[in-house]
Protein backbone atom coordinates (compact mmCIF):
# COMPACT_ATOMS: atom_id res chain seq x y z
CA UNK A 1 0.00 0.00 0.00
CA UNK A 2 1.36 3.38 -0.90
CA UNK A 3 1.52 6.03 1.77
CA UNK A 4 -0.47 9.14 1.02
CA UNK A 5 0.40 12.56 2.37
CA UNK A 6 -1.76 13.55 5.33
CA UNK A 7 -1.92 17.16 4.25
CA UNK A 8 -1.32 18.37 0.76
CA UNK A 9 -1.01 22.10 0.13
CA UNK A 10 -0.87 23.61 -3.36
CA UNK A 11 -0.42 27.20 -4.58
CA UNK A 12 -1.71 28.72 -1.39
CA UNK A 13 -1.88 32.51 -1.48
CA UNK A 14 -3.42 34.82 1.05
CA UNK A 15 -3.68 38.59 0.59
CA UNK A 16 -4.81 41.29 2.98
CA UNK A 17 -5.79 44.04 0.57
CA UNK A 18 -2.69 44.77 -1.48
CA UNK A 19 -0.41 43.14 1.05
CA UNK A 20 0.49 39.54 0.36
CA UNK A 21 0.79 37.51 3.57
CA UNK A 22 1.82 34.29 1.92
CA UNK A 23 2.39 33.48 -1.72
CA UNK A 24 2.34 30.21 -3.68
CA UNK A 25 3.05 27.93 -0.74
CA UNK A 26 3.06 24.23 -1.60
CA UNK A 27 4.14 21.22 0.41
CA UNK A 28 3.12 17.72 1.52
CA UNK A 29 3.01 16.63 5.13
CA UNK A 30 3.46 12.90 5.62
CA UNK A 31 1.95 10.82 8.43
CA UNK A 32 4.08 10.96 11.56
CA UNK A 33 6.04 13.94 10.33
CA UNK A 34 6.63 17.19 12.19
CA UNK A 35 7.05 20.14 9.89
CA UNK A 36 8.52 23.37 11.17
CA UNK A 37 7.80 26.77 9.68
CA UNK A 38 10.42 29.32 10.66
CA UNK A 39 11.00 32.94 9.76
CA UNK A 40 10.99 36.36 11.35
CA UNK A 41 7.92 38.22 12.59
CA UNK A 42 5.68 39.27 9.71
CA UNK A 43 6.96 36.63 7.32
CA UNK A 44 3.50 35.05 7.06
CA UNK A 45 4.03 32.00 9.26
CA UNK A 46 0.94 32.41 11.39
CA UNK A 47 -1.26 33.37 8.45
CA UNK A 48 -0.13 30.25 6.66
CA UNK A 49 -0.88 28.14 9.73
CA UNK A 50 -4.35 29.66 10.04
CA UNK A 51 -5.04 28.93 6.38
CA UNK A 52 -3.93 25.33 6.83
CA UNK A 53 -6.05 24.87 9.93
CA UNK A 54 -9.17 26.25 8.26
CA UNK A 55 -9.31 29.32 10.48
CA UNK A 56 -8.73 31.64 7.51
CA UNK A 57 -9.79 31.20 3.92
CA UNK A 58 -6.93 31.53 1.42
CA UNK A 59 -7.46 33.58 -1.75
CA UNK A 60 -6.17 30.85 -4.01
CA UNK A 61 -4.83 27.35 -3.65
CA UNK A 62 -6.03 24.22 -1.93
CA UNK A 63 -5.48 22.32 1.29
CA UNK A 64 -6.31 18.63 0.93
CA UNK A 65 -6.47 16.55 4.11
CA UNK A 66 -6.53 12.77 4.21
CA UNK A 67 -9.26 12.33 6.81
CA UNK A 68 -9.36 9.14 8.79
CA UNK A 69 -13.15 9.20 8.82
CA UNK A 70 -14.01 10.44 5.35
CA UNK A 71 -11.02 10.09 3.04
CA UNK A 72 -9.53 12.98 1.07
CA UNK A 73 -11.25 16.26 1.87
CA UNK A 74 -10.70 19.78 0.64
CA UNK A 75 -10.50 21.70 3.92
CA UNK A 76 -11.83 24.94 2.47
CA UNK A 77 -14.48 23.23 0.37
CA UNK A 78 -16.11 21.56 3.38
CA UNK A 79 -19.25 22.97 4.95
CA UNK A 80 -18.60 24.95 8.11
CA UNK A 81 -20.24 22.23 10.19
CA UNK A 82 -17.96 19.49 8.83
CA UNK A 83 -14.87 21.67 9.08
CA UNK A 84 -15.59 22.46 12.72
CA UNK A 85 -16.22 18.79 13.44
CA UNK A 86 -12.90 17.92 11.80
CA UNK A 87 -11.04 20.53 13.81
CA UNK A 88 -12.35 19.25 17.12
CA UNK A 89 -11.97 15.55 16.44
CA UNK A 90 -9.05 14.80 14.10
CA UNK A 91 -7.13 18.03 14.61
CA UNK A 92 -5.69 20.07 17.43
CA UNK A 93 -4.59 23.67 17.60
CA UNK A 94 -2.16 24.91 20.25
CA UNK A 95 -2.09 28.69 20.56
CA UNK A 96 0.90 30.71 21.67
CA UNK A 97 -1.21 32.33 24.36
CA UNK A 98 -2.84 29.55 26.37
CA UNK A 99 -5.61 31.92 27.41
CA UNK A 100 -6.91 31.89 23.83
CA UNK A 101 -7.06 28.12 23.69
CA UNK A 102 -8.48 27.48 27.15
CA UNK A 103 -11.71 28.30 28.92
CA UNK A 104 -10.30 30.31 31.79
CA UNK A 105 -13.54 30.29 33.79
CA UNK A 106 -13.88 26.53 34.21
CA UNK A 107 -11.71 23.89 35.88
CA UNK A 108 -8.84 22.01 34.25
CA UNK A 109 -10.98 18.86 34.14
CA UNK A 110 -13.76 20.64 32.25
CA UNK A 111 -11.20 22.10 29.85
CA UNK A 112 -9.84 18.68 29.02
CA UNK A 113 -13.32 17.13 28.93
CA UNK A 114 -14.87 19.68 26.58
CA UNK A 115 -13.94 17.87 23.37
CA UNK A 116 -15.23 14.59 24.74
CA UNK A 117 -18.54 16.19 25.69
CA UNK A 118 -18.73 17.93 22.32
CA UNK A 119 -18.59 14.60 20.55
CA UNK A 120 -21.25 13.09 22.77
CA UNK A 121 -19.59 11.64 25.90
CA UNK A 122 -22.21 11.84 28.67
CA UNK A 123 -20.66 9.91 31.55
CA UNK A 124 -19.24 12.24 34.18
CA UNK A 125 -17.04 9.61 35.84
CA UNK A 126 -15.61 8.50 32.50
CA UNK A 127 -14.82 12.07 31.45
CA UNK A 128 -13.15 12.69 34.77
CA UNK A 129 -11.06 9.56 34.50
CA UNK A 130 -9.84 10.52 31.04
CA UNK A 131 -9.12 14.07 32.21
CA UNK A 132 -7.12 12.78 35.17
CA UNK A 133 -5.17 10.48 32.91
CA UNK A 134 -4.29 13.36 30.59
CA UNK A 135 -3.37 15.62 33.45
CA UNK A 136 -0.81 13.01 34.43
CA UNK A 137 0.49 12.69 30.89
CA UNK A 138 1.19 16.40 30.67
CA UNK A 139 2.80 16.31 34.12
CA UNK A 140 0.35 18.40 36.11
CA UNK A 141 -0.35 17.31 39.69
CA UNK A 142 -3.57 15.31 39.74
CA UNK A 143 -5.02 17.30 42.63
CA UNK A 144 -5.20 20.35 40.36
CA UNK A 145 -8.02 18.73 38.36
CA UNK A 146 -10.70 21.00 39.84
CA UNK A 147 -8.61 24.17 39.82
CA UNK A 148 -9.13 26.81 37.19
CA UNK A 149 -6.42 27.70 34.67
CA UNK A 150 -6.40 31.22 36.16
CA UNK A 151 -4.61 29.66 39.16
CA UNK A 152 -2.04 27.94 36.93
CA UNK A 153 1.41 29.16 35.95
CA UNK A 154 2.17 29.95 32.31
CA UNK A 155 3.88 26.61 31.75
CA UNK A 156 1.04 24.64 33.32
CA UNK A 157 -1.52 26.50 31.23
CA UNK A 158 0.39 25.60 28.10
CA UNK A 159 0.56 21.94 29.14
CA UNK A 160 -3.15 22.01 29.94
CA UNK A 161 -3.85 23.43 26.50
CA UNK A 162 -1.88 20.58 24.95
CA UNK A 163 -3.87 18.01 26.95
CA UNK A 164 -7.16 19.67 25.95
CA UNK A 165 -6.19 19.28 22.29
CA UNK A 166 -4.83 15.76 22.43
CA UNK A 167 -7.68 14.20 24.42
CA UNK A 168 -9.65 13.40 21.25
CA UNK A 169 -6.63 11.51 19.82
CA UNK A 170 -6.11 13.83 16.86
CA UNK A 171 -3.97 12.89 13.85
CA UNK A 172 -2.72 16.35 13.13
CA UNK A 173 -1.83 19.18 15.49
CA UNK A 174 -1.12 22.76 14.53
CA UNK A 175 1.10 24.63 16.94
CA UNK A 176 1.70 28.35 16.89
CA UNK A 177 4.79 29.20 18.96
CA UNK A 178 3.85 26.73 21.71
CA UNK A 179 6.80 27.77 23.84
CA UNK A 180 6.80 31.48 23.09
CA UNK A 181 6.74 33.69 26.17
CA UNK A 182 7.82 30.96 28.59
CA UNK A 183 11.12 30.92 30.44
CA UNK A 184 13.80 28.51 29.28
CA UNK A 185 13.47 25.79 31.90
CA UNK A 186 9.71 25.63 31.35
CA UNK A 187 10.31 25.67 27.59
CA UNK A 188 12.63 22.71 27.92
CA UNK A 189 10.02 20.74 29.85
CA UNK A 190 7.31 21.46 27.32
CA UNK A 191 9.58 20.57 24.42
CA UNK A 192 10.46 17.33 26.13
CA UNK A 193 6.80 16.60 26.68
CA UNK A 194 5.82 17.44 23.10
CA UNK A 195 8.61 15.30 21.72
CA UNK A 196 7.45 12.36 23.80
CA UNK A 197 3.79 12.81 22.85
CA UNK A 198 4.49 13.18 19.14
CA UNK A 199 6.61 10.04 19.27
CA UNK A 200 4.19 7.92 21.29
CA UNK A 201 0.95 8.99 19.63
CA UNK A 202 2.36 9.03 16.08
CA UNK A 203 1.09 12.54 15.63
CA UNK A 204 1.77 14.68 12.64
CA UNK A 205 2.31 18.32 13.42
CA UNK A 206 2.86 21.67 11.80
CA UNK A 207 4.84 23.87 14.14
CA UNK A 208 5.32 27.58 13.67
CA UNK A 209 8.22 29.09 15.55
CA UNK A 210 10.82 31.80 15.31
CA UNK A 211 13.08 29.87 17.63
CA UNK A 212 15.51 27.72 15.65
CA UNK A 213 16.43 25.78 18.77
CA UNK A 214 12.83 24.63 19.15
CA UNK A 215 12.71 23.77 15.47
CA UNK A 216 15.86 21.65 15.72
CA UNK A 217 14.56 19.75 18.72
CA UNK A 218 11.05 18.99 17.50
CA UNK A 219 10.84 19.04 13.74
CA UNK A 220 11.88 16.62 11.03
CA UNK A 221 11.58 19.02 8.17
CA UNK A 222 11.79 22.79 7.96
CA UNK A 223 10.35 25.50 5.75
CA UNK A 224 11.96 28.94 5.92
CA UNK A 225 9.67 31.84 5.11
CA UNK A 226 10.55 35.37 4.17
CA UNK A 227 8.08 38.03 3.06
CA UNK A 228 5.35 35.45 2.50
CA UNK A 229 7.43 33.12 0.33
CA UNK A 230 9.05 29.83 1.21
CA UNK A 231 12.72 30.53 0.46
CA UNK A 232 14.19 27.23 1.53
CA UNK A 233 13.00 23.86 2.72
CA UNK A 234 14.56 20.55 3.54
CA UNK A 235 15.45 18.25 6.43
CA UNK A 236 15.87 20.24 9.63
CA UNK A 237 19.51 19.32 10.20
CA UNK A 238 20.35 20.04 6.61
CA UNK A 239 18.70 23.45 6.61
CA UNK A 240 20.21 24.50 9.91
CA UNK A 241 23.70 23.11 9.38
CA UNK A 242 24.09 23.92 5.73
CA UNK A 243 21.79 26.82 4.89
CA UNK A 244 21.74 27.68 1.20
CA UNK A 245 19.60 30.79 1.00
CA UNK A 246 21.10 34.09 2.16
CA UNK A 247 18.15 34.73 4.44
CA UNK A 248 18.45 31.32 6.10
CA UNK A 249 22.17 31.89 6.57
CA UNK A 250 21.35 35.18 8.27
CA UNK A 251 18.74 33.50 10.51
CA UNK A 252 21.09 30.70 11.53
CA UNK A 253 23.94 33.08 12.25
CA UNK A 254 21.62 35.23 14.40
CA UNK A 255 21.25 32.52 17.05
CA UNK A 256 22.83 33.79 20.23
CA UNK A 257 25.63 31.50 21.39
CA UNK A 258 25.31 30.49 25.03
Amino acid at each position, binding site marked *: MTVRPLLSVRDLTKRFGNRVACRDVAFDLWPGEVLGIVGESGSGKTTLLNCLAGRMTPDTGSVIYDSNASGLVDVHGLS*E*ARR*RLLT*RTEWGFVNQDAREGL*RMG*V*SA*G*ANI*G*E*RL*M*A*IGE*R*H*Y*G*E*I*RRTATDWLGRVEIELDR*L*DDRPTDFSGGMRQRLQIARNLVSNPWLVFMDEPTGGLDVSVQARILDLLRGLVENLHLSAVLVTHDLGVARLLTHRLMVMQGGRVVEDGLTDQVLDDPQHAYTQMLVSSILPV
Partner: protein
Amino acid sequence: MPDIPIQEAAYNYAYLDEQTKRMIRRAILKAVAVPGYQVPFGGREMPLPYGWGTGGIQVTAAIIGRDDTLKVIDQGADDTTNAVSIRRFFARVADVATTTRTEEASVIQTRHRVPETPLKEGQILVFQVPIPEPLRMLEPRETETRTLHALSEYGVMQVSLYESIARHGRIAKTYNYPVMVNDRYIMSPSPIPKFDNPKLDRSPALQLYGAGREKRIYAVPPYTPVKSLDFDDHPFEIETWSESCALCGSRESFLDEMIVDDTGKRLFLCSDTDWCQERQGEHQGEQPQEEPAK
Protein backbone atom coordinates in the same frame (compact mmCIF):
# COMPACT_ATOMS: atom_id res chain seq x y z
CA MET B 1 -61.91 51.21 37.81
CA PRO B 2 -64.60 52.36 35.36
CA ASP B 3 -65.04 50.08 32.36
CA ILE B 4 -64.37 51.89 29.12
CA PRO B 5 -65.98 50.19 26.13
CA ILE B 6 -63.26 49.04 23.76
CA GLN B 7 -64.83 50.80 20.78
CA GLU B 8 -64.44 54.21 22.39
CA ALA B 9 -60.97 53.62 23.79
CA ALA B 10 -57.88 55.26 22.35
CA TYR B 11 -56.19 51.91 21.82
CA ASN B 12 -56.62 49.20 19.25
CA TYR B 13 -58.03 45.88 20.46
CA ALA B 14 -55.47 44.18 22.76
CA TYR B 15 -53.31 47.34 22.84
CA LEU B 16 -51.02 46.56 19.88
CA ASP B 17 -51.96 47.71 16.37
CA GLU B 18 -52.98 45.07 13.87
CA GLN B 19 -49.75 45.23 11.82
CA THR B 20 -47.67 44.59 14.92
CA LYS B 21 -49.85 41.68 15.94
CA ARG B 22 -49.51 40.15 12.48
CA MET B 23 -45.73 40.53 12.70
CA ILE B 24 -45.69 38.80 16.09
CA ARG B 25 -48.00 36.04 14.83
CA ARG B 26 -45.63 35.38 11.93
CA ALA B 27 -42.77 35.07 14.41
CA ILE B 28 -44.88 32.69 16.53
CA LEU B 29 -45.73 30.53 13.51
CA LYS B 30 -42.07 30.26 12.63
CA ALA B 31 -41.20 29.46 16.24
CA VAL B 32 -43.81 26.69 16.34
CA ALA B 33 -42.51 25.29 13.06
CA VAL B 34 -38.93 25.09 14.41
CA PRO B 35 -39.33 24.05 18.06
CA GLY B 36 -36.78 25.67 20.36
CA TYR B 37 -35.37 28.04 17.74
CA GLN B 38 -35.24 31.68 18.80
CA VAL B 39 -37.05 33.84 16.25
CA PRO B 40 -36.19 37.56 16.28
CA PHE B 41 -39.17 39.91 16.18
CA GLY B 42 -39.69 43.66 16.23
CA GLY B 43 -40.43 44.06 19.93
CA ARG B 44 -42.49 47.14 20.79
CA GLU B 45 -42.41 49.50 23.71
CA MET B 46 -45.00 48.33 26.21
CA PRO B 47 -46.55 50.30 29.05
CA LEU B 48 -44.39 48.57 31.64
CA PRO B 49 -40.64 48.24 32.16
CA TYR B 50 -38.41 45.59 30.61
CA GLY B 51 -38.15 42.66 32.97
CA TRP B 52 -41.80 42.91 34.02
CA GLY B 53 -43.11 40.75 31.22
CA THR B 54 -43.02 42.85 28.05
CA GLY B 55 -42.24 39.81 25.91
CA GLY B 56 -45.03 37.71 27.39
CA ILE B 57 -47.53 40.56 27.09
CA GLN B 58 -46.76 41.06 23.42
CA VAL B 59 -47.22 37.36 22.70
CA THR B 60 -50.48 37.29 24.67
CA ALA B 61 -51.71 40.43 22.90
CA ALA B 62 -51.02 38.86 19.51
CA ILE B 63 -52.93 35.64 20.21
CA ILE B 64 -55.78 36.71 22.48
CA GLY B 65 -59.39 37.00 21.26
CA ARG B 66 -62.70 38.00 22.83
CA ASP B 67 -63.71 34.41 23.57
CA ASP B 68 -60.51 33.61 25.45
CA THR B 69 -60.23 33.24 29.20
CA LEU B 70 -56.99 34.58 30.60
CA LYS B 71 -55.08 33.53 33.70
CA VAL B 72 -51.91 35.31 34.76
CA ILE B 73 -49.51 33.96 37.37
CA ASP B 74 -46.34 35.29 38.86
CA GLN B 75 -44.20 32.84 40.85
CA GLY B 76 -47.26 30.56 40.85
CA ALA B 77 -49.53 33.14 42.48
CA ASP B 78 -52.54 34.86 40.91
CA ASP B 79 -52.59 37.69 43.41
CA THR B 80 -49.14 39.27 43.15
CA THR B 81 -48.66 42.76 41.70
CA ASN B 82 -47.34 41.69 38.32
CA ALA B 83 -50.06 39.09 37.82
CA VAL B 84 -52.86 41.41 38.93
CA SER B 85 -51.70 44.30 36.72
CA ILE B 86 -51.28 42.19 33.58
CA ARG B 87 -54.64 40.47 34.12
CA ARG B 88 -56.35 43.81 34.60
CA PHE B 89 -54.54 45.24 31.57
CA PHE B 90 -55.98 42.57 29.28
CA ALA B 91 -59.41 42.69 30.87
CA ARG B 92 -59.44 46.36 29.91
CA VAL B 93 -57.77 46.45 26.48
CA ALA B 94 -58.89 43.06 25.14
CA ASP B 95 -62.25 42.68 26.83
CA VAL B 96 -61.52 39.10 27.86
CA ALA B 97 -62.79 37.05 30.74
CA THR B 98 -60.18 36.37 33.40
CA THR B 99 -59.87 33.54 35.83
CA THR B 100 -57.53 32.23 38.47
CA ARG B 101 -58.49 28.61 37.76
CA THR B 102 -56.01 26.77 35.56
CA GLU B 103 -58.67 24.44 34.14
CA GLU B 104 -60.88 27.26 32.90
CA ALA B 105 -58.14 29.30 31.23
CA SER B 106 -57.46 29.13 27.51
CA VAL B 107 -54.40 31.40 27.72
CA ILE B 108 -52.11 31.38 30.75
CA GLN B 109 -49.36 33.97 30.95
CA THR B 110 -46.75 32.98 33.48
CA ARG B 111 -43.56 34.07 35.10
CA HIS B 112 -41.33 31.55 36.95
CA ARG B 113 -43.80 28.65 37.20
CA VAL B 114 -45.82 26.08 35.27
CA PRO B 115 -49.19 25.40 36.95
CA GLU B 116 -49.43 22.20 39.00
CA THR B 117 -52.77 21.25 37.43
CA PRO B 118 -51.93 19.27 34.27
CA LEU B 119 -52.57 21.32 31.14
CA LYS B 120 -54.92 20.19 28.39
CA GLU B 121 -55.02 20.34 24.62
CA GLY B 122 -56.12 23.74 23.39
CA GLN B 123 -54.53 25.66 26.25
CA ILE B 124 -51.65 28.04 25.56
CA LEU B 125 -48.96 28.76 28.10
CA VAL B 126 -47.14 32.08 27.54
CA PHE B 127 -43.80 32.46 29.34
CA GLN B 128 -42.10 35.74 30.18
CA VAL B 129 -38.41 35.30 29.40
CA PRO B 130 -35.63 37.55 30.71
CA ILE B 131 -32.66 35.94 28.89
CA PRO B 132 -33.66 33.73 25.95
CA GLU B 133 -30.14 32.54 25.10
CA PRO B 134 -29.21 29.46 27.17
CA LEU B 135 -25.55 29.76 26.13
CA ARG B 136 -25.27 33.45 27.02
CA MET B 137 -23.33 33.01 30.27
CA LEU B 138 -20.92 30.63 28.57
CA GLU B 139 -20.40 32.45 25.29
CA PRO B 140 -20.92 36.22 25.28
CA ARG B 141 -20.80 36.70 21.48
CA GLU B 142 -24.21 36.59 19.80
CA THR B 143 -22.65 35.66 16.43
CA GLU B 144 -20.96 32.69 18.07
CA THR B 145 -24.04 31.44 19.97
CA ARG B 146 -26.06 31.54 16.75
CA THR B 147 -23.37 29.47 15.03
CA LEU B 148 -23.35 26.99 17.91
CA HIS B 149 -27.14 26.59 17.63
CA ALA B 150 -26.99 26.32 13.84
CA LEU B 151 -24.36 23.59 13.99
CA SER B 152 -25.85 21.93 17.08
CA GLU B 153 -22.49 22.30 18.84
CA TYR B 154 -23.48 22.02 22.46
CA GLY B 155 -20.34 20.74 24.18
CA VAL B 156 -20.00 23.99 26.09
CA MET B 157 -23.41 23.55 27.77
CA GLN B 158 -22.34 20.14 29.01
CA VAL B 159 -19.10 21.72 30.23
CA SER B 160 -21.10 24.00 32.51
CA LEU B 161 -22.92 21.01 34.00
CA TYR B 162 -19.60 19.17 34.44
CA GLU B 163 -18.23 22.20 36.23
CA SER B 164 -21.23 22.28 38.54
CA ILE B 165 -20.73 18.64 39.56
CA ALA B 166 -16.97 19.15 39.98
CA ARG B 167 -17.58 22.07 42.31
CA HIS B 168 -20.74 21.04 44.18
CA GLY B 169 -20.87 17.28 43.82
CA ARG B 170 -24.14 17.48 41.88
CA ILE B 171 -25.75 19.61 39.18
CA ALA B 172 -26.49 22.63 41.33
CA LYS B 173 -28.58 24.54 38.81
CA THR B 174 -32.10 24.76 40.21
CA TYR B 175 -33.91 27.12 37.85
CA ASN B 176 -33.61 28.02 34.16
CA TYR B 177 -32.32 24.47 33.76
CA PRO B 178 -31.32 23.94 30.10
CA VAL B 179 -33.39 21.57 27.99
CA MET B 180 -32.99 19.91 24.61
CA VAL B 181 -36.09 20.43 22.47
CA ASN B 182 -37.03 17.83 19.86
CA ASP B 183 -33.42 16.50 19.86
CA ARG B 184 -32.27 19.61 18.05
CA TYR B 185 -32.12 22.94 19.90
CA ILE B 186 -30.98 23.66 23.43
CA MET B 187 -33.50 26.03 24.97
CA SER B 188 -33.80 28.12 28.09
CA PRO B 189 -37.12 27.19 29.73
CA SER B 190 -37.15 30.69 31.35
CA PRO B 191 -36.48 30.88 35.09
CA ILE B 192 -38.95 28.19 36.13
CA PRO B 193 -37.69 25.84 38.85
CA LYS B 194 -36.28 22.60 37.46
CA PHE B 195 -39.20 21.01 39.31
CA ASP B 196 -41.36 22.18 36.39
CA ASN B 197 -39.08 20.91 33.60
CA PRO B 198 -40.76 17.48 33.35
CA LYS B 199 -44.12 19.25 32.78
CA LEU B 200 -42.75 20.75 29.55
CA ASP B 201 -42.03 17.33 28.08
CA ARG B 202 -44.74 16.19 25.63
CA SER B 203 -47.18 18.65 27.15
CA PRO B 204 -50.59 18.69 25.41
CA ALA B 205 -50.60 22.51 25.67
CA LEU B 206 -48.79 24.89 23.33
CA GLN B 207 -45.88 26.72 24.98
CA LEU B 208 -44.89 30.17 23.72
CA TYR B 209 -41.90 32.07 25.09
CA GLY B 210 -41.55 35.84 24.67
CA ALA B 211 -38.43 37.86 25.51
CA GLY B 212 -39.19 41.57 25.28
CA ARG B 213 -35.80 43.10 25.93
CA GLU B 214 -33.91 40.78 23.61
CA LYS B 215 -36.80 40.66 21.13
CA ARG B 216 -36.96 36.89 20.67
CA ILE B 217 -39.86 34.46 20.49
CA TYR B 218 -39.56 30.70 20.68
CA ALA B 219 -42.02 27.88 21.15
CA VAL B 220 -42.61 24.25 22.03
CA PRO B 221 -45.59 22.79 20.15
CA PRO B 222 -47.86 20.26 21.88
CA TYR B 223 -46.42 16.78 22.47
CA THR B 224 -42.84 17.82 21.64
CA PRO B 225 -40.08 15.96 23.51
CA VAL B 226 -38.26 18.26 25.95
CA LYS B 227 -35.31 16.66 27.69
CA SER B 228 -33.42 18.18 30.61
CA LEU B 229 -29.67 17.87 30.08
CA ASP B 230 -27.70 15.62 32.42
CA PHE B 231 -24.97 12.99 32.64
CA ASP B 232 -25.52 9.23 32.53
CA ASP B 233 -24.11 8.88 36.03
CA HIS B 234 -25.67 12.13 37.32
CA PRO B 235 -29.24 11.96 36.02
CA PHE B 236 -31.61 14.93 36.09
CA GLU B 237 -33.51 15.17 39.38
CA ILE B 238 -36.20 17.52 40.64
CA GLU B 239 -36.46 19.14 44.04
CA THR B 240 -38.18 17.26 46.86
CA TRP B 241 -39.37 18.42 50.27
CA SER B 242 -39.68 16.55 53.51
CA GLU B 243 -42.48 18.94 54.53
CA SER B 244 -45.98 19.27 53.14
CA CYS B 245 -47.99 22.41 52.43
CA ALA B 246 -49.20 23.99 55.68
CA LEU B 247 -52.52 24.99 54.09
CA CYS B 248 -53.55 22.10 51.87
CA GLY B 249 -51.17 19.33 52.94
CA SER B 250 -49.90 18.77 49.40
CA ARG B 251 -46.73 16.71 49.11
CA GLU B 252 -46.45 16.72 45.34
CA SER B 253 -46.40 20.44 44.58
CA PHE B 254 -43.58 23.00 44.54
CA LEU B 255 -43.33 24.51 48.03
CA ASP B 256 -42.24 28.01 49.03
CA GLU B 257 -40.52 28.42 52.36
CA MET B 258 -41.75 31.37 54.44
CA ILE B 259 -40.40 32.80 57.63
CA VAL B 260 -43.45 33.77 59.66
CA ASP B 261 -42.14 35.43 62.82
CA ASP B 262 -39.04 37.05 64.26
CA THR B 263 -37.90 33.87 65.96
CA GLY B 264 -37.31 32.23 62.61
CA LYS B 265 -40.37 29.97 62.50
CA ARG B 266 -40.78 28.47 59.06
CA LEU B 267 -43.78 27.49 57.04
CA PHE B 268 -44.01 25.66 53.73
CA LEU B 269 -46.76 26.66 51.31
CA CYS B 270 -47.73 25.70 47.77
CA SER B 271 -46.29 28.17 45.31
CA ASP B 272 -49.29 27.58 43.01
CA THR B 273 -52.15 29.41 44.78
CA ASP B 274 -54.89 28.02 42.53
CA TRP B 275 -53.76 24.44 43.16
CA CYS B 276 -53.61 25.10 46.89
CA GLN B 277 -57.09 26.63 47.06
CA GLU B 278 -58.62 23.84 44.97
CA ARG B 279 -57.18 21.32 47.37
CA GLN B 280 -58.30 23.23 50.43
CA GLY B 281 -61.81 23.23 48.97
CA GLU B 282 -61.72 19.47 48.39
CA HIS B 283 -60.48 18.74 51.86
CA GLN B 284 -63.04 20.89 53.67
CA GLY B 285 -65.32 18.73 55.73
CA GLU B 286 -63.09 15.66 55.35
CA GLN B 287 -60.69 16.71 58.04
CA PRO B 288 -60.41 19.69 60.34
CA GLN B 289 -58.37 22.45 58.75
CA GLU B 290 -54.99 22.65 60.35
CA GLU B 291 -54.19 25.99 61.87
CA PRO B 292 -51.11 27.66 60.41
CA ALA B 293 -48.25 27.04 62.82
CA LYS B 294 -47.83 29.75 65.38
